């Protein structure tokens, strides 16, 4: 809880600071846009965070966005599949790819970093090949207007991705912090051998974490492709896996596994998005975008390490 409190305080301080320097921050358009991004990023960061809690890593989500985005566009605009069916297929493919990672890691015994790094390269390549390296769009949205309106719309002026993220976070909070399965996730992340010696089917628990990550990446892929409204196969979703990892680590997940919380991951995501927003609003050259984020994350983890060793 201490860690979440730290990051939430940092988030609040940053918000007050940016708002004081540029009141634009509090404009309804800015708040809506930032919360839309927090929603989309939050959903897949929760998935990646759960994988990190088991002691693994998922580098493949960014490329998955490109692959699934390209496929979604083709299904809707070229093949004219029913929107609901297309959505279902995208979700199934995401979960399937996650499951594949899980099997390679737990049954073949490969390292998570390698498996999902290969995923990162493979899915990006597939996306570019399928799309013939041409940007895919959704055109006028004929036939699936409701889907586009749903994903880009709002409920009581709250953007849909944010609403969905809150729902996902609530469900995953119960799963992670209150259920038997969640306890097993932490246990295998802490020490897989001891977990196995306590009768936990550690392979199944670990593999399932990758399925969750794949599924949530697919949900985010749909939201993201309608948000950008076009999918450029070579750049769509680039580096997004790193946003997720950064959010999870900022939010208190340990890359050694066994530590982390849903609240922390969401707060970490929000912090990253507010930082990007800050670069925009404070007229910092946008080329410094990554540098600012890198610096803040570094300062955050150094502060955490120093505080911990003092304790």
């Amino acid at each position: 809880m201490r860690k979440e409190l730290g990051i939430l305080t940092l988030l609040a301080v940053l918000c007050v600071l940016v708002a004081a320097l540029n009141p634009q921050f509090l404009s309804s358009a800015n708040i809506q846009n930032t919360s839309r991004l927090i929603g989309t990023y939050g959903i897949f960061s929760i998935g990646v965070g759960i994988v990190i809690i088991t002691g693994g890593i998922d580098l493949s989500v960014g490329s998955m966005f490109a692959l699934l985005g390209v496929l979604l566009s083709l299904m809707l605009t070229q093949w004219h599949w029913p929107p609901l069916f297309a959505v279902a297929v995208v979700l199934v493919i995401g979960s399937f790819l996650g499951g594949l990672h899980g099997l390679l890691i737990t049954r073949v015994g490969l390292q998570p970093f390698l498996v999902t790094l290969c995923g990162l390269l493979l899915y990006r390549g597939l996306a570019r090949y399928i799309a013939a390296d041409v940007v895919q769009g959704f055109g006028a949205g004929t036939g699936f207007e409701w889907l586009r309106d749903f994903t880009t719309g709002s409920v009581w002026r709250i953007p849909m991705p944010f609403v969905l993220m809150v729902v996902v976070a609530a469900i995953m909070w119960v799963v992670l912090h209150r259920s038997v399965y969640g306890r097993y996730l932490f246990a295998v992340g802490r020490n897989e051998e001891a977990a196995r010696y306590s009768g936990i089917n550690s392979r199944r628990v670990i593999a399932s974490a990758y399925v969750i990550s794949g599924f949530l990446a697919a949900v985010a892929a749909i939201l993201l492709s309608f948000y950008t409204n076009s999918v450029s196969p070579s750049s769509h979703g680039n580096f997004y896996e790193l946003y997720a990892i950064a959010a999870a680590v900022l939010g208190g997940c340990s890359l050694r596994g066994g530590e982390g919380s849903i609240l922390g991951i969401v707060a970490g995501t929000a912090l990253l998005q507010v930082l990007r927003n800050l670069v925009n609003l404070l007229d910092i050259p946008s080329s410094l975008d990554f540098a600012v984020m890198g610096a803040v994350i570094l300062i955050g983890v150094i502060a955490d390490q120093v505080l911990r060793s003092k304790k």
Partner: protein
Amino acid sequence: MLEMSGISKKFPGVIALDSVQFAVGRGEVVALVGENGAGKSTLMKILAGIYVPDAGTIRLDGKPVLIHSPRNSAELGISTIHQELEVIDTLDVAANVFLGREPLWGGPLRLVDRKKIHSEARQVLVRVGLDISPDLPLRELSTAQKQLVEIARALSQNARLLIMDEPTSSLTLSETERLIQVVADLRSNGVSVVYISHRLQEIERLADRVVVLRDGRNAGELRRGDISHNRMVQLMVGRDLKTFYAESASTLGPVRVELRELRTARYPAHAVSLSIQAGEILGLAGLIGAGRSELAQALFGVDRPRGGEIVLDGAVIDLPSPKDAILRGIYLVPEDRRNSGLLTGMSVRENITLPNLSEFSSAGWIRRADEAASAQKSCTELKIKTASVETKAGSLSGGNQQKVVLAKWLSLKPRVILFDEPTRGIDVGAKAEIYQLMRRLAAEGVAILMISSDMEEILGNSDRVAVMHEGRLTGILQRSDCTEEAIMSLAVA
């Protein structure tokens, strides 16, 4: 020559050494004995420069010294031969002897002077009675020979004080004889030796003086004429052995678990058959690497056996994973407590309830109040000393950690419990409690397999003792036939 006085060392939660006195004269062989966890290794690690004491002084030849690093310790002429040998198998004997301080030539090129290390290695090998070529790669040597190479390395560094930690624990009888001879030769050459061993007969033969530690304090000292097996045990245990170990139950039930021609992956060539009755504690003795833990792991579903059958209450069972063993009431208290037994970073509560979570959950949702109450109850029952059930398991003392591992299983319904080195590194008080608990479980009809390298533990608790040597079962002794000598002769077969 060496004088340590008032040495104290604290670790979080334990006082490892409490104002200990220890001295070694020139050319003297001092045996340091005590039970596991008595503080022997901590004291020797202070001499080796691995730990710095919290209090106390160390004098070498009358001059006070500070030993702040292993390098510093070597410079003072102190050398340690560890139980796990620190040699590099792929290098040859000479390179091992001079590892880290190779004579050089070629000026700025810093090339190794191979001629010199070979000729000097040959001389020092003679001193330890090792008649082999210095060109031999170390992997072609036996454990005993490797140990002598380590001693040669220490001598080539002009070691004046040699610390030997359980040097004979993995040697055969004839190799042990040879080592004892080497130590006697070193003594006559003026080298001082600290000899740590659980083999009391060796100490009776070899030691000029015995220093006994118990619970981190000096428990007594015996001079040459007073050294005897019984005196040493008395000082080590500090109480009458009869009250230390619980009485055996007189009535045994039917055969609970049986291994038929079981072959483990480590020793596929040897089949082991044995059975344990309900209410019986079967001790499993043998040297390190005899294949005892592998047997327990096969019984717990960690490793699939290569052949043979496991029979539980008359039915042949298959155990593909620990989960299957647990479902059948077969539990393991593993040797490596901190890595396999416990989730040290999780709370006592989470550790205790982990194998039993379905008891405290409805539709996958954990009822936290019930869970905490059950963990609390286990802590009270087993007298686990912890600030609260939310304390991290890793911060408890060894004895309490082991009780947490036990608590995991006791809230379930045990039929067979496998203990692998149940009291390693545990203080004497917690030991007695664990022995009593073992006996109580047996009285309730649980079949218990107790693997132990601690001879007193085997002799004090077992109804029968099975002995293994290099994967083979070399004998089963009834309680009335159990003596340290009988077990040892089967163990070294």
